[in-house]
């Protein structure tokens, strides 16, 4: 079963590397959104330091959501997805593999780049590490939860507008604890509680979201 998982991850990563513009568009979207906020709000470092956690997390939410469209759509259009669902292997593994690959492509680069962008917001070293840690813990949860929305809207007209409507309300707990951890660190409260909650959300979505996604895929591919 683990071999299937690896095969799917490897396949999706190869496909992503062949179409590199997809990876970079999500990443640059994140960079641009984060850089736009100081232009709109003003360059005062005190204000920027305060809004940084929220800005980074909202930008990460939007970037992860934008990339969701491609998660199943390409495979659905050329019929690969249907073949994958017909294999005797459990759908759970298929979904988990695709989501993991999606996270490696969209979530990890974003988390690694965030500390660098955080310097623009005059964050100190420790909040920067917390920011990266929360993004590493939170973005897989975003990919997992978002996969449900992506699977439900597969092949629909205007699914691009529908996915945010379905998925963003479900993202709220991740946003609260992700941004909250950084904020708690900035204000010297200690981020441990938030990080535990974030990990709990990740574990819960790791167990429950692939089942829901697999069910949604079956409904959509019927």
């Amino acid at each position: 079963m683990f071999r299937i998982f690896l095969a799917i991850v490897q396949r999706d990563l190869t496909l992503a590397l062949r179409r590199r513009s997809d990876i970079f568009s999500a990443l640059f979207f994140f960079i641009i959104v984060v850089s736009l906020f100081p232009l709109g709000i003003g360059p005062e470092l005190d204000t920027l330091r305060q809004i940084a956690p929220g800005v980074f997390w909202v930008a990460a939410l939007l970037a992860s959501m934008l990339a969701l469209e491609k998660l199943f759509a390409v495979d659905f259009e050329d019929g690969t997805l249907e073949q994958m669902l017909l294999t005797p292997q459990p759908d759970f593994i298929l979904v988990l593999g695709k989501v993991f690959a999606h996270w490696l492509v969209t979530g990890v680069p974003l988390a690694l780049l965030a500390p660098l962008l955080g310097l623009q917001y005059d964050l100190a070293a420790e909040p920067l590490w917390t920011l990266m840690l929360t993004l590493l813990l939170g973005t897989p949860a975003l990919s997992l939860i978002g996969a449900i929305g992506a699977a439900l809207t597969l092949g629909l007209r205007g699914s691009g507008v529908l996915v945010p409507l379905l998925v963003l309300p479900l993202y709220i707990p991740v946003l609260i604890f992700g941004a909250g951890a950084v904020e708690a660190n900035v204000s010297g409260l200690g981020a441990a509680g938030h990080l535990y909650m974030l990990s709990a959300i990740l574990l819960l979505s790791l167990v429950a979201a692939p089942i829901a996604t697999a069910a949604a895929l079956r409904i959509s591919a019927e």
Partner: protein
Amino acid sequence: MNNSTINWFKYSSPASFYPLAGRLIPWFTAITVILIGVGLFLSFFVAPTDYKQGEGYRIIFVHVPAAWMSMFIYLIMAFWAAMGLIFNTRLSAMMSQALAPTGAMFTFLALWTGAFWGKPMWGTWWVWDARLTSELILFFLYIGFIALQGAIDDTRRADKAGALLLLVGVVNIPIIYFSVKWWNTLHQGASISMSTGSSMASIMLNTMLIMALGFWAYTIAVALSRVRSIILEREKDSQWVRELPELKQ
């Protein structure tokens, strides 16, 4: 199945539910009119003026029942969604589809009356209180469900996808509520306490309960009449619909 139990599945067929719904609607409409009439009379003329909040508190008689209904209706929709997925009954999905606009309406009503209440009581239309925020998110969930159902042309797929979304939503609601609550206490502290329930005069509580029952009856009446329309729309090609006396002309 032995004879002493009612065969519930009989009414899960649209053909037998349609006339039943038609017979129930006038009753629930009458109950709605009576209960909301009595409730409004009590809330405007009988309930005493609150010594602290003045006359403005009377909005609570619409606000609280609407907020209750907004939450109940989502749960009922999720219940029908689960029934639909488990027993594969068409009517269940139609029920949750019929309830959704009413639920969204009550959520909006709760938010709206809440704003009207907040202005004189707290001096602001909106505060980022845990309850207000989660009510707003509930409104988003309703809109998402309605949008998803509207976007899918194939009714069978729309039913199942909507049901799945409802179940995912119902699992998430407690998580969202507690995270919002925690976020709220961390940010601004519990400056606003709405827990006046225990100190409430019994006439106020009774009025609120009457209004809530009236809203229940309204919800049932509206959902039944909407489900009748949905049945007619979906089954328009079937024999029994063509033989309905009200459609034969």
